[in-house]
């Protein structure tokens, strides 16, 4: 079973050979690996994008004093409560071939999933970054000016002082996008070998009653989230000096 192409149908063919295919060999199968790698690729790209956009926005928000900031802050809070399936649905309609961006051909591709994850992670990055920036004492920029820093340099130092919070923002974004299932299921379609990631694979395996599989995938998901957080903690420990 599984076909001569043999590239990635091991998990599914498990249905038909429930007792003959040991879990251990399948864990190292190409399909399993492709699921893990795609999960990482989608989440890492989404985190990179949402951080690149969200950290500057959060910094601005954390330092801003004018009235527009409270509106943005409110938007951020709403954004954190954004239901992933609603984002998924909106993007589905946007990227559908009969939707406004249908010509891009992004529906059911990892790209659409990255867009969804970026949107979902962005409010967290902005909110946590802003909080971290606000936790730096108000007086600090002025005192840094007193040490010869320009306004720009002082701002950079404030951001650097908030680096623990920024690490948290990135970790939260990664955790959220790695464990999110609703939006990627809708815009990705859970296509084997193309858009199947850890979470959507777990949903599928559970619905098929292959709990040992679902658990194995869940273990990997947990491990990756833990590993990512450990990396960030190490990064923060190792970080000295800077602007």
């Amino acid at each position, binding site marked *: 079973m599984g076909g001569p192409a043999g590239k990635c149908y091991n998990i599914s063919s498990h249905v038909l050979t429930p007792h003959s295919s040991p879990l251990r060999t399948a864990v190292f199968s190409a399909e399993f690996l492709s699921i893990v790698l795609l999960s990482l690729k989608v989440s890492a790209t989404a985190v990179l994008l949402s951080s690149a956009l969200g950290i500057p926005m959060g910094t601005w928000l954390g330092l801003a004093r004018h009235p527009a900031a409270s509106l943005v802050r409110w938007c951020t809070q709403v954004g954190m409560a954004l239901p992933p399936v609603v984002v998924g649905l909106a993007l589905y309609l946007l990227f559908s071939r009969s939707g406004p961006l249908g010509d891009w051909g992004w529906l059911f591709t990892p790209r659409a999933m990255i867009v969804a994850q970026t949107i979902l992670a962005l409010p967290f990055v902005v909110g946590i970054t802003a909080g971290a920036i606000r936790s730096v004492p108000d007086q*600090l920029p*002025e005192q840094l000016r*007193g040490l*010869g820093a320009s306004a720009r340099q002082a701002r950079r130092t404030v951001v650097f002082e908030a680096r623990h919070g920024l690490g948290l923002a990135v970790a939260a974004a990664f955790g959220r996008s790695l464990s999110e299932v609703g939006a990627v299921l809708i815009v990705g379609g859970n296509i084997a070998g193309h858009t199947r990631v850890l979470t959507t694979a777990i949903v599928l395996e559970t619905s098929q009653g292959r709990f040992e599989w679902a658990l194995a995938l869940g273990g990997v998901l947990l491990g990756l989230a833990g590993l990512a957080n450990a990396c960030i903690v190490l990064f923060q420990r190792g970080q*000295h000096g800077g602007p």
Partner: protein
Amino acid sequence: MARESTGNSHASPPLWRVERLAYAYGKTVALDVERLSVRRGRLLCLLGPTGAGKSTLLRLLAGTAVPSRGRIDVGSARPEKANGAPSVAMVYQQPLPLRRSVAENVAYGLKLKRLPRREIETRVEHWLQQLRLAELASRRADRLSGGQLTLLAIARALAIEPEVLLLDEPTANLDPGRVELVEQVVRAEVNRRDCTVVWTTHNLFQARRIADDVALLLGGACIEQADGRTFFDSPADERTKAFLNGDLIY
């Protein structure tokens, strides 16, 4: 820029001249100084009780606050400097540490000036030693005691070797041994580099120990400014006399 040609040949040329300078938060006038001058290469003590406007004046001199009225003229700028603005470092009354090591806090201003690494290391080491912080060099600055933090703040300001050093009650929270240390180090730096220091204090005796010039601030106004000897020996204003006698005039 006004350039002052002083008639008094003994006096140092003024670095800053303050004229009709006022600062208000909302409707509360914190400071309204008619005249004040800061002379190059001298230690000026801004004397006065809490709330007299000393800190506000320092912030205006540092340029981190903008006056509501009036201006600060740069006096005799050094000819080699194009814009004439002197380099300034300020130590705040409640200094904030950067969440880094003590040594990195001292290196901060030097890195901004893009000094060579060796130069930074030498200066950091020098100033940590001067302020007896050498053993704490690798300690996290945000875990220092209040007194240590004040010394660190002074070290990181002095390390920059600014033309003007502004110190806001630098010894208010220090034990006597450290007060003496700070006074010595700052005094020595004025003598060594001919830099200018503006030092606020509410302590009459401290002003007497360290000041080249003294200005008395009361209720946001500058009552009297003179060189140290004139100020203490023959004060002109009645309020200065009363202040020196320890009468409650505020």
